[in-house]
């Protein structure tokens, strides 16, 4: 099963090289590589499902020097989401980038993006992560600028620079860790941190500083409020399939790293105060992002600000998890967090694809003037509605279950003020989603058919259905995948 770990990197990377060598076949090769990656991820998921975490050391080097890769429940869940979302976006992109000149640029970058995402989720080593993080930042910015308009170039140049700043800050943290603990491997690092604590030493100030720097760098990349300023213009101006991937996957990867460092690697040095700070910034993101989404005049900008808000919810988990002792309640909350991240991945990618199609049909994406187009495109409107339900956290979406558990955690730890944040965030989300959907009930003539252009509409609808029906009703397996016992059978 460990070969699936290697293939998770080799397949997309090989695909990227092939699309460069054979640009005429870029779309076909790209789709093939993405499909194979999905298949491989399915095998990998099956392996983790049956055997628990998988490990691999490449190049025959073990820790502390080697390049360690680990697939545990959390990373596998993220990998599986990425595989499915990229597969569906690829099908849409094959249609979107039909022009061969644009396809030639898109596919190699797209496959490199997938390589770096897979690498990020699997790496068990801080430097390894850095390499993938850089690759991710570069390809994401290049993809975002593919549209070629001046605004897109400017926004993505800023995105690139912010990303570099984030990586540099992160690298500084890595250097500190290496100087202090002489290892970059996750497991060894945790061991040495814990050993230091056990010997009665104070939590190492080096470790705390390093964690702070790394989280700061990653928070910039994850667009945590108030470091989110670069996201709305970048995500709002990118081509639709790229926006979908940026919002659903790329920022999520940076978030995933923060979570992993915080929970699993640096757990001995984290404090409630620091967790509260992250939660507070998250709450700021929920309120500010939702408010800006409510005020946005363009559909894609609305979607981008909604991403800022949704990432905020993920950070609100931190202070609540921190306050819970290790055990079932905390593990359940971690699964809920994963569920929310995954649901958002599907919902937001579906939303962006639908928004892109609508923009193409209407010739613009000004929300106030979209009424007629929305009524003409029932399937796309339904996609926006379903994805919107998931963003609000209404049943039967995965976000509803996750939000229920998050609220429960807030009550259980006596941190009732987060309940107020969730309450306000939910109502703001209702307001911005329905401000859009209201447009669809005007006095326009009746649409003839449900689907107008199935090739473009079905993939987006599938993503939205995944976020609402499927993840809402079949969450129990996620508990088993993440190895949480005492969960739903």
């Amino acid at each position: 099963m460990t070969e699936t770990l290697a293939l998770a990197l080799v397949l997309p990377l090989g695909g990227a090289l092939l699309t460069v060598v054979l640009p005429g076949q870029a779309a076909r090769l790209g789709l093939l590589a993405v499909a194979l990656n999905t298949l491989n991820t399915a095998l990998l998921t099956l392996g983790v499902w049956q055997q628990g975490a998988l490990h691999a050391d490449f190049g025959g080097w073990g820790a502390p020097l080697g390049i360690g890769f680990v697939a545990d429940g959390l990373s596998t869940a993220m990998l599986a989401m990425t595989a499915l979302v990229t597969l569906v976006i690829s099908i849409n992109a094959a249609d979107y980038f039909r022009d061969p000149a644009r396809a030639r640029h898109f596919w190699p970058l797209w496959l490199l993006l997938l390589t770096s995402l897979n690498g990020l989720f699997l790496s068990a080593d801080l430097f390894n992560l850095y390499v993938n993080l850089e690759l991710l930042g570069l390809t994401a910015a290049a993809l975002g600028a593919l549209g070629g308009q001046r605004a897109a170039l400017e926004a993505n140049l800023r995105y690139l620079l912010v990303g570099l700043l984030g990586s540099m800050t992160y690298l500084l943290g890595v250097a500190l860790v290496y100087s202090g603990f002489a290892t970059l491997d996750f497991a060894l690092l945790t061991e040495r941190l814990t050993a230091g604590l056990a010997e009665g030493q104070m939590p190492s100030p080096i470790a705390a500083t390093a964690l702070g720097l790394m989280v700061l760098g990653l928070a910039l990349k994850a667009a945590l409020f108030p470091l989110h300023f670069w996201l709305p213009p970048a995500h709002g101006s990118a081509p639709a399939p790229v926006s979908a991937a940026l919002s659903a996957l790329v920022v999520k990867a940076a978030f995933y790293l923060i979570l992993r460092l915080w929970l699993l690697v640096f757990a001995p040095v984290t404090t409630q105060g620091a967790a509260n700070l992250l939660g507070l910034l998250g709450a700021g993101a929920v309120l500010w992002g939702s408010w800006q989404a409510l005020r946005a005049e363009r559909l894609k900008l609305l979607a981008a600000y909604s991403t800022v808000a949704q990432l905020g919810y993920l950070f609100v988990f931190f202070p609540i998890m921190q306050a819970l002792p290790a055990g079932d309640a905390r593990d359940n909350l971690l699964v809920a967090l994963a569920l929310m991240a995954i649901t958002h991945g599907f919902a937001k990618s579906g939303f962006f694809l639908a928004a892109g199609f609508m923009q193409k049909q209407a010739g613009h994406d000004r929300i106030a003037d979209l009424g007629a187009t929305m009524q003409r495109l029932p399937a796309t409107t339904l996609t926006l509605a379903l994805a919107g339900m998931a963003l609000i956290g209404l049943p039967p979406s995965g976000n509803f279950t996750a939000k229920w558990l998050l609220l429960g955690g807030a009550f259980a730890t006596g941190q009732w003020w987060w309940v107020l944040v969730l309450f306000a965030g939910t109502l703001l989300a209702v307001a911005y989603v329905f401000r859009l959907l209201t447009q669809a009930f005007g006095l326009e003539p009746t649409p003839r058919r449900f689907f107008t252009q199935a090739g473009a509409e079905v993939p987006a609808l599938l993503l939205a259905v995944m976020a609402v029906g499927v993840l809402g009703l079949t969450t129990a397996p996620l508990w088993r995948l993440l190895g949480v016992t005492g969960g739903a059978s």
Partner: protein
Amino acid sequence: MTTSFDHLLPVAIVLSSLLPGLAIFLVAEDNRRLRTLLNLTGAIVKLLLVGVLVWGVYHDHAYRAELPLAPGLSLILRADALSVLFVTLSTVLWLVTTIYAVGYLEHSPNRSRFFGFFSLCVTATVGVALAGNLFTFVVFYEILTLATYPLVSHRGTPDATAGARVYLAYTMVGGALLLTGAVWLQGLIGPVDFTQGGLLSDQPSALYPQFIAIFLLLLAGLGVKAALVPLHGWLPRSMVAPAPVSALLHAVAVVKAGAFGIVRLVYDIYGVEFAHSLGLLTILGALASITIIYGSMMALSQDGLKKRLAYSTVSQVSYIALGASILGPVATIGGMVHLVHQGIMKITLFLCAGNYAETLGVHKVSEMNGIGRRMPWTTLAFSVGALGMIGIPPIAGFISKWYLGMGAIEAGMPWVLLVLAVSTLLNAGYFLPILFRAWFREPPADWPHEEIPRRRLETHATLLWPPLITAALCLIAGLLAAAPFSPLEWTELIARREYHG
């Protein structure tokens, strides 16, 4: 003993409207025949399945299906006697309303969208009825909001859009309150499965202050849909919806989901005796009484027929909450049986109002002079519904009021009789003038907007039969109240199980 069929039946009842609903969205707009086929097949299949359910539950058969989502969170569909009451009501009225809506919307746009959401609405209602725990209840309660929003804004006029927005604002805030209360309660006592007699009385008394706060949160969440004053503001505004939707909102789905939830809250979460000991029933009773009087007073001054009926709903639905707030089996019966009785009476009134609007363009009470001569059958049905609402025997409404009054005396709460008496007078005050106008005044030379020339029937058959059927049901439920499987007999069964385990 349970068999796999016992798991399947509640699921099948939910699916029997969900699947046709989803299919209807895909039906081409002009394919009327296929759409009607899907609609009626779904409604009839559901009716048959519910028939089996009624028989089984009567014979103490346990129907239960569970889908675990997370530790402590399961979707549970389960049928008890109370669910059956609500499931049967919504299933029977769905069939009637569907027939009516097919006729009513014959020439209007967006029919596939309409009937799709209409079926989803019934699905959510049935889910609310069959929910076996608070989590499942919340899930379907929220889905119900989502499914009704498009129906309220269906017409697409600025008025309709604005009404839908008000509806959404109220119900979403209510939903968030309900969710907060539900999560809080589950955090204190674990999964909240609906249990006859309630499940809180064994809890340590240190939790009581929190239980009181949670009750108020849940009541606020449910009270929005049940249109308890001061949470009722959405209801008159949503009158912009087409007549079959108003009928659905007021008689079957939305307000009933709220009232049903209040019944579940009092009897199957807190337990009526425990709620009484916390003093919560007094609050509920006061709110219900204020709502009953206020709704009737507002109804008096409305000239718009549907508005008058809307305020009447505000008032009448609170009889159910009032019944729940009085300790004792007789009042319980009175409140619960009104769930069904108000449903069949109110749907009759709304379908008739729709007929007046559709056939003659009459929307206001002041335009109804002599309408009984032009449309005698519709007006006859309307009269049965209206007299029932006032509480004239032998129509169904009388039975509810009788039991409520007896229950109040039994519980030593004579002031309830005063509320009932005032409400009856006010009911008479806003319904009798309509009946007088309709039957005894001279009709005008021209109706405001008479679409259809005179023909054999006073209006389309699909519009005429449904209110006649429901009016007949109002009479049958009253006349045969003591017969087996009547709503009254069924609520007596519930009350017996609720008070004696």
